[in-house]
Structures are given as C-alpha cells and as structure tokens.
C-alpha cells in the first residue's frame, strides 16, 4: 500500500478514534456544548477524509456509504485492511 494511502488511512483512524471518545463523553454529558462542537467538527472532518479516500482508493465499507463507480468496485483489491 503506498505511503499517501497509508497516511490517509491513518488520519481516518485518528479522527474516528476522536469521534468514539467524544461519543462516549457526550453519552454522559449530552449538554456539553464545547464537546458537541468538537464532535461535529471531527464528524465533518471524517466525512471529508472518507470522501477523499474513497474517491482515490475505492470504498471503505461494503454498502451504505459510497456508490460504486463502474465497474463494480467491491471486487477490487487491496481492501483497507490489506
């Protein structure tokens, strides 16, 4: 997997970890506005990175998020975990 692709994957993992953490914090503190603002900022960032990754390297998950380019992309390797 080339370096740029690895780096983008790494960023996705970092941002999704931040989202899990804020998700848990907000479960306990649902009215914390600063935490919510940070969550929303990371959610937008995640969306942005995901679009970038998928447009360059193909889908990250099997369905529900990204439409497939022609031809069907789910038969292409390597997958994000490979």
């Amino acid at each position: 997997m080339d370096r740029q692709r690895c780096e983008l994957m790494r960023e996705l993992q970092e941002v999704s970890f931040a989202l899990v953490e804020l998700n848990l914090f907000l479960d306990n503190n649902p009215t914390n506005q600063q935490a919510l603002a940070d969550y929303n900022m990371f959610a937008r960032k995640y969306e942005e990175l995901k679009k970038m990754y998928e447009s360059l390297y193909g889908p990250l998950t099997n369905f529900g998020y990204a439409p497939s380019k022609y031809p069907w992309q789910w038969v292409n390797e390597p997958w994000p975990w490979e």
Partner: protein
Amino acid sequence: MQKRELARAYIPRQPYVRLFPLREALMRGTIFPNLYMPYREKDR
C-alpha cells in the same frame, strides 16, 4: 476515605478540559488528558 460506605461505586464528573492532538490520542488510548493514567513500571 473514612466517610465512604463499603461497596459503593462512585464516578466523579469528568470536566471537559482539553484534548490531546489526534495522533497522540490514538497512541495513548484516550483523547482526554484527564483520563490518561498509565501504570508505571515500578508499580508492578
């Protein structure tokens, strides 16, 4: 600790202070500096 009853769990509110930079957070296992409490080698 004298006023604490036996077998009561308690969880203080976690203040929202600041966040680790994202790369650091992933390495440390938490994004919250106030939850970062690694076991030290000499405590084992």
